[in-house]
């Protein structure tokens, strides 16, 4: 059964089409990522599921029930907010138990459940503290526990890792992933970080200008982008324009090629000039210009490095050139 279904859903703010005719289908138990640059409509989609926004057109279903006329407090979904939105006047245990208190549970019962949820996010014993006494990562976990304690059927996460530093973010990514496997709740995760989306999600929807550009598994999105935007935004892949591809293959369609699949060779179908080199640790990134087209190539650290300004030839295996949809 589908957990969340969008049927041609739009949310317009005056002339601004924040979400424009989006249809999607999120399966039960799935870890679904909405990926896109800021202003692409992904957060508005999440808010439509939560009920903070109402669609101007289209239907939204949660487990088959139409919800577009249901206020947030009547939906069986919970949200982890980008700024966590913990209540500053309540301590951690009362924050976590808030939903249960609203549901009318007694003090002892809800505190026991909240303590259990805190254990789940490895914060047992922190109940008496105020949110202001916690670090960013701890607040994030409290926000997670506060949502999970209500046993939602869908958990919505709005860029929950955005405010954390890199190390903590990587750690939380793994924890979220294992938590999702353990609880088997449908996770809908909004992020602008392609690495995060690809590493965590079962399926990814790429948003741009209020529309879904492509939906697929991380491998689909990464290796088989359908349009240049996806190739560029998600994979930082090289996008070859139609004219160039026509010259190389005879087909008038844009194509993409992964930087690590591009090879510097003595002979090759494409000639380019080296415009910059940067050291990345595992590899060296070579910036290239082939006419008007900018390309990047990742060289293994043991490969011979060209000099800046040098003219080089580029080569690749035939299967590495991925053809995309024309006219996009």
């Amino acid at each position: 059964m589908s957990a969340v279904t969008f049927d041609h859903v739009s949310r317009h703010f005056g002339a601004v089409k924040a979400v424009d005719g989006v249809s999607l289908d999120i399966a039960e138990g799935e870890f679904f990522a909405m990926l896109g640059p800021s202003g692409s409509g992904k957060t508005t989609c999440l808010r439509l599921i939560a009920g903070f926004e109402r669609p101007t057109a289209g239907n939204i279903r949660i487990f088959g029930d139409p919800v577009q006329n249901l206020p947030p407090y009547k939906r069986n979904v919970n949200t982890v907010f980008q700024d966590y939105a913990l209540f500053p006047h309540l301590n951690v245990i009362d924050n976590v138990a808030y939903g249960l208190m609203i549901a009318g549970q007694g003090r002892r019962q809800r505190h026991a459940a909240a303590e259990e949820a805190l254990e789940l996010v490895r914060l047992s014993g922190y109940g008496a503290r105020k949110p202001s006494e916690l670090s960013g990562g701890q607040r994030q976990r409290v926000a997670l526990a506060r949502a999970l304690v209500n046993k939602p059927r869908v958990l919505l996460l709005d860029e929950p890792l955005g405010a954390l530093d890199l190390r903590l973010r990587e750690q939380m990514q793994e924890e979220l992933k294992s938590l999702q496997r353990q609880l088997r709740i449908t996770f809908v995760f909004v992020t602008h970080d392609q690495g995060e989306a690809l590493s965590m999600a079962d399926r990814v929807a790429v948003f741009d200008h209020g529309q879904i550009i492509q939906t697929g598994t991380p491998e689909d999105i990464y290796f088989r982008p359908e349009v240049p935007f996806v190739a560029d935004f998600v994979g930082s892949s090289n996008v070859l324009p139609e004219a160039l591809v026509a010259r190389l293959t005879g087909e008038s369609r844009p194509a993409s090629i992964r930087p690590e699949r591009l090879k510097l060779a003595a002979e090759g179908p494409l000639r380019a000039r080296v415009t910059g080199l940067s050291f990345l640790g595992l590899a060296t990134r070579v910036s290239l210009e082939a006419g008007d087209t900018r390309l990047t190539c990742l060289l293994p650290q043991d490969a011979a490095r060209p000099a800046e300004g040098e003219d080089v030839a580029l080569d690749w295996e035939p299967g590495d050139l991925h053809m995309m949809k024309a006219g996009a």
Partner: protein
Amino acid sequence: MSMVRTEAIPPQERGAGIGTRISDVLWRHPAVLIVLLLLPPALWLGIIYLGSLFALLVQSFFSIDHFTGLIRYEFTLDTYAELFRPSNFDIILRTVTMAICVSLASAAISFPIAYFAARYARGAWRALFYLGIMMPLWSSYLVKIYAWKLILAKEGILTWALQGLHLEWLLDAFLALPVIGGNSLSVSTTGTFIVFVYVWLPFMVLPIQAALERVPTSMLEASGDLGARPGQTFRHVLLPLALPGVIAGSIFTFSLTLGDYIIPQIIGTSRLFIGQAVYQHQGIAGNIPLAAAFAVVPILIMGVYLWIAKRMGAFDAL
């Protein structure tokens, strides 16, 4: 372009004026600067402000000789005991009750206004809000009170408007009520109450608005997300977070009502409020000790009030 040749000046000789030398001394001794800056306000606060308050406090421990009308400069608690005589204690009760009612009504009226201003008003609406709230403060306090006297008088615009609506019977029924009624609104306790609320309202709206402005929208959304209906969100999230603002506003409305003697003088019954009692005792009656004792009452009440507010956790979210 012409080249300008500059002579190198040794740093010691650069700008040897008196201002520069003072600046140099202050830069080397920052403590001197702090003392210079704080000395005038500290003197003002310490001597003129707290000193006069202390003098007032001392007066309240003296008493008056009822035969000669002279003040006896001996320490006694008799004057305070006099406050508990029914005629005096009535005044205190009446004033405190009025201050409580005025604060509650101000808070109830202010909250929706402040909420709208904090959450929805942008641009021109926001300017209009500030103008609407502040403008009554720009005109004279006395003018406003006399204007209200005319509005509330028997021949005033309110009666006229109610006559036009054939609702005069409603006003008459209200005025027939004991305690809060009277001959007309301008000579009733209700009239005093209305004018108090009108005059102090800005002092309640602005702190509440400032408090609500600090509550992020996501906090209210989170509450709804966790199952709370709007009423529950108000009770469990919005009100607790706005409480410091409500308390701050009520400190104004409460203490200003406790001390005011002009509004009940012009609008209302002949029954006294604390401010009027102080005025009469120190003026016509010449009973400075009793006037001082009366003046101490609002200070004590406010002290107790703040202590209770703190105990209730009103300042926890600050």
